[in-house]
C-alpha cells in the first residue's frame, strides 16, 4: 500500500502540532497574568503607537511575490524532466532547451523592466 508509507508523515505532523500546542498552553497555564493597559500596547521602541499597522508598504514586496509565482511554477516542470533526463537523451534535452530559453527570456524581461531592482 502506498498510503501506508505516508502514515509516518502524519505521525510527525501530529508530533509537531502537539509540540506547538504544548508550548502555547504551558505558558498560558503556568505563567502569571497581571494585565495592565501599558502591557497590552504594541511594543514599538517605547514610542506611543501611532496609527494602524495596515498602512501602505512598498510595492516591491508584491512584485517579488508575483515573480516568485511565475518562476516557482516553471521550476516545478524541471523535476520530472530531471528525473528522466538520462533516459530521454537528446530529445528531452532539446525539448527542455526550448522551455529553458522561454524561462530565461522571462527573466531578462523582468530584469530589464526593473522588477528585480530594490530602489
Amino acid at each position: 500500500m502506498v498510503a501506508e508509507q505516508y502514515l509516518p508523515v502524519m505521525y510527525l505532523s501530529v508530533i509537531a502540532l502537539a509540540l506547538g500546542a504544548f508550548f502555547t498552553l504551558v505558558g498560558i497555564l503556568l505563567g502569571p497574568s497581571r494585565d495592565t493597559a501599558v502591557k497590552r500596547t504594541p511594543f514599538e521602541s517605547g514610542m506611543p503607537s501611532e496609527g494602524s499597522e495596515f498602512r501602505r508598504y512598498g510595492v516591491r514586496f508584491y512584485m517579488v511575490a508575483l515573480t516568485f509565482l511565475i518562476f516557482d511554477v516553471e521550476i516545478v516542470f524541471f523535476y520530472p524532466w530531471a528525473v528522466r533526463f538520462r533516459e530521454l537523451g537528446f530529445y528531452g534535452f532539446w525539448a527542455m532547451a526550448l522551455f529553458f530559453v522561454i524561462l530565461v527570456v522571462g527573466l531578462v524581461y523582468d530584469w530589464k523592466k526593473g522588477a528585480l531592482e530594490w530602489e
Partner: protein
Amino acid sequence: MELLLNPVVISLVKVLVIILLFVMVVGTVLTLMERKWMSAVQDRIGPNRANIGSFRGRGTLHIAADGLKSIFKEDTVPEGANRFVFTIAPFFGFFSAIVIWAVIPFAGPLGGFTFQITDVNIGMLLVFAVTSLGVYGTVLAGWSSNNKFAVLGAARGTSQMLSYEIFLGLSLVGLFMIVGSVRVSDLVAYQNTYWFGDVLPKWGVLTQPVSCVLFFVAMLAEAKRLPFDAPEGESEIIAGYFLEYSGMRYAAFMLAEYVAIVGIGALTVTLFFGGYHVPWLHADGFHLLGAVLPLPAWLVVLLQLGAFIGKVLFFCWLVIILRWTVPRFRFDQIMALGWKRLLPVCLANVAVTALVLLAVDGWQ
C-alpha cells in the same frame, strides 16, 4: 513481541526516538552552544552562572534555567491582535522543521530494519513542500501582531523566503539529473559509488559543487539565519515578525529556528556529503584499492550512525560560526544577490549539468 513487530509500532518508535531523543535534544543544546561559541569568538566566557548548589556544569544548566524562565513568564497578546492567527502562527515553524525528518536516513539498513522513518518515492519533493510551509509562520505571526515592526519583518521575511525557495528548488535539479531519482535513499546510495575503481566517492559536493554552495546558502536564507536575518534584524526592527511574542510562545519560535538549523545540517549532509556513508565503507566492510577489511553488520551501522551525527553536528557548528563571521546583509543586497546572482548561476548549473551528462552518456 507480536506488538513490537507491527510496522505501525515500529515507525511510531522511530518517529519518537528521532524527534524527541535527537532532533529536539540537539536543537535545545544548540541554543546554549550558540551563546558559548559566540562568547568564544568574542573572547568572553559566556553563560556559566546557573547553578544547583555549587554545581555549575560550565553553563549547561542554563538550558534548564532558560526553559523554566520561559514557562513562568507572562504570556501577553497585544491589543488589536488577531488572537486566532496569533495563536496558530508558532505551529508552522515546528511543522516545517520537524516533518522533513520523515525522509532523512540515519544509517544503512540492518536486516529488515531501516534507520529512516519512511522512504517515499517523492522524497525531496516532500521536503520542498514542507519547508515552503514555514513562510506561513512568518507572515501570520507578523500580520496578526498589530505592530508595524512586526509587519515590516513579516514582509521582508516573506519576500526573502519566497525568493530563496526558488534557488533552493532549482539548485537540486542537477543532482536529480545525475541520480535520476528524488527518492532520498537513491540519492544517498549513489554517493557510495566511486570514481577510478573504488578511490574517490561520488559525493554530491564533488559531482555538483556549485549546487552544494547554492543549496546551503538558500537553506540559510530559508531559516533566516545570518547573514540573511534582515527579517529579524534586532538592531533595526527589534525582532521582526515575532516581536510581540513572549514567554513560551517566544521560546517556540526560537526552538523552531534551532531545530531548523539541525535540519539544514541533515539535508546538506544527506544530499552533498555522503549522507550516512563513511568513505569506502560498504555493507560488509571497508573496500579500498582491492583490499577488503570485513566488519560485522552491527559495527558498520554503528559507524554510519556516528558518521551521520558527526557530519550533522559539524554543519550545525558551521551555521552558528557563520553568524559570528559575516555581517548582516542589507535587505536590497539580499534580494539582488538572490535574483541577479544566484538565479542565473542556478540556471547555468542546470544547463551545464545537462550538457556534461549528455557528453558523458554519449561517449560511453
